[in-house]
């Protein structure tokens, strides 16, 4: 039988939940299956998940975001020797299907894609990105979520497939030609979209939207940071902040890094390491010679948001905060970014402490 040609209607499909496990298994053809896995109470991480039942799909957020697949916390950048110069390490060719990625995280990846291809593309990131297949799943927000006001509660790009929960079925959107091939692999499990599904899709969207509780005005943030540059809010936060780096490590868009050479005992060869860095560390803006451009914790905190809000907006026309809530959920000092954003824009604070 000849394959049905789908022109102009190939981007949406319905997957009954009873077939979800089989659908998931079929995705294994395209790469190693990964998704959110519950490690212990209160701890969900992205990791290998062989079967659908291993997935913790009701989870709100994983500890580390998708970036760990694209830009590991610590990696060998080059091997070097005085004889051969700098040589790239071997790269793994393995593909990964990451299932259950929420819209905020998909938007974060779309942003990382821009950052890493801006001006000088980062080949290591791009190679990994090409081997990462993303299957998004929608979610219901908790008290730390603020993706809606940040404009990243829906994903328009950056996924191969996206599944929206509409009750007994998933509404499947296709985001790439590879995604279309993935859907083909389970063609017998999916069906055509009817009007009732579209209605259910919108109803789900309404329901999700109502679950957000925080009043924020993301459009005013960049301006508010400039205007409020000497606002006491920064000092307030600076006093509480431990500079522990939890926020940067778990942030889906934080991608600052440090580079260091580790030399072997032969003193002629070694490895150049790239590791995640954290702009809250006192040395971050310290130059050789000893001058520190941001010695105060409060100025570092402010800079963190100037980068995320002002700089990302200027360079990439989107904000570097997707409202995933990880920095709030993980802050040992209970610093709440929603509260900081509300205060800096002169709004009433609605958030509960972290």
């Amino acid at each position, binding site marked *: 039988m000849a394959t049905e040609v789908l022109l102009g209607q190939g981007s949406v499909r319905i997957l009954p939940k009873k077939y979800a496990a089989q659908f998931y298994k079929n995705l294994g053809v395209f790469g190693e299956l990964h998704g959110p896995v519950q*490690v*212990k109470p*209160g*701890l969900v*991480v992205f990791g290998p998940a062989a079967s659908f039942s291993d997935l913790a799909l009701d989870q709100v957020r994983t*500890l*580390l975001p998708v970036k760990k697949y694209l830009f590991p*916390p*610590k990696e060998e950048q080059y091997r070097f020797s005085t004889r051969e110069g700098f040589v790239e390490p071997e790269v793994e060719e393995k593909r990964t299907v990451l299932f259950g990625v929420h819209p905020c995280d998909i938007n974060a990846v779309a942003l990382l894609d821009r950052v890493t291809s801006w001006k000088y593309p980062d080949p290591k990131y791009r190679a990994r990105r090409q081997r990462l297949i993303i299957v998004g799943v929608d979610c219901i927000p908790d008290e730390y979520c603020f993706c809606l006001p940040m404009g990243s509660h829906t994903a328009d790009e950056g996924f191969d497939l996206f599944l929206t929960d509409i009750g007994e079925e998933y509404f499947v959107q296709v985001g790439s030609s590879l995604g279309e091939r993935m859907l083909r692999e389970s063609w017998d499990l999916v069906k055509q979209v009817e009007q009732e599904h579209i209605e259910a899709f919108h109803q789900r969207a309404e329901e999700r939207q109502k679950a957000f509780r925080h009043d924020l005005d993301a459009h005013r943030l960049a301006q508010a940071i400039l205007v409020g540059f000497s606002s006491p809010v920064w000092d307030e936060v600076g*006093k*509480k*902040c*431990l*500079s*522990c*780096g*939890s926020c940067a*490590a*778990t942030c889906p868009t934080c991608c600052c890094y440090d580079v*260091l050479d*580790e*030399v*072997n*005992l032969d*003193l002629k060869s*070694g490895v150049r390491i790239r590791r*995640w860095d*954290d702009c809250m*560390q*006192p*040395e971050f803006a310290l130059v050789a010679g000893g001058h520190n451009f941001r010695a105060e*914790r409060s100025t570092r905190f402010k800079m963190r948001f100037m980068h995320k809000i002002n700089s990302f907006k200027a360079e990439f026309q989107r904000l570097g905060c997707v409202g995933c809530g990880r920095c709030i959920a*993980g*802050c*040992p*000092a*209970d610093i709440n970014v929603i509260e900081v954003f509300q205060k800096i824009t002169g709004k009433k604070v609605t958030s509960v402490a972290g």
Partner: protein
Amino acid sequence: MSKPKVGIFGLTGCAGCQLAIINCEDELLDIVGAVDLKSFVMAQSNNEETEFDVAFVEGSVVTREDEHYLKEIRSKSGILVAIGSCACFGGIQAAANDREREDLLQIVYGTKENFYEARKVAALHEVVKVELQIPGCPIEKSEIISGIASLLRGDTPLIPTYPVCLECKYKENLCLLKERGDMCLGPVTRAGCDARCPSHGVACRGCRGPVEEANTASEYSILLEKGYAEEDIKRALRTFAYATELKEKL
């Protein structure tokens, strides 16, 4: 180029850092091959009383004898490296630094005998000039090796200055401080241990000493809020580094 003359010494401490060097089994021959090991009392006989290009010193200054010995090592050495948290921050010995030596000696040894000429416990840099510090309880094998390699090249070894939390997050551990309410000192403690304890579900006790800009005040109030007693928090923060950085902040 002649090999640098190296000495490895111990003051008051558990000798665990010297043992950590001996435990570099796979790399030990490379290390011994790269340097001229003149003195390492714990590991070899035929130690020489000579000048050293680099001296590694473990332990803290607890007795008058430690003080004299350290000054002697200093006078003979080009570079003096403090190894381990005792040498860098005073270590556990310094936890009782706010009490009189006389009282402590009596508590431990009674009133009849006095074996030691004790002094207020000090980190090495409080007594002599120290070029480098490699913290840890004990020091990490990877930092010994990369530290020696850096020193042989003439570079300053790279020791992490960021806190344990970063490494803990990289390993995707549950936050023991936030989620379990443990008295975890990760936010104010230097990394480099790959968050070993929290990765095994044990709260960080600060064995690598405080980060340079440790926000002890905030850590303190977080723990108070979680219901810990003032005395317990102070005791925890003083465990490894009371001789130096933390003293003023408590």
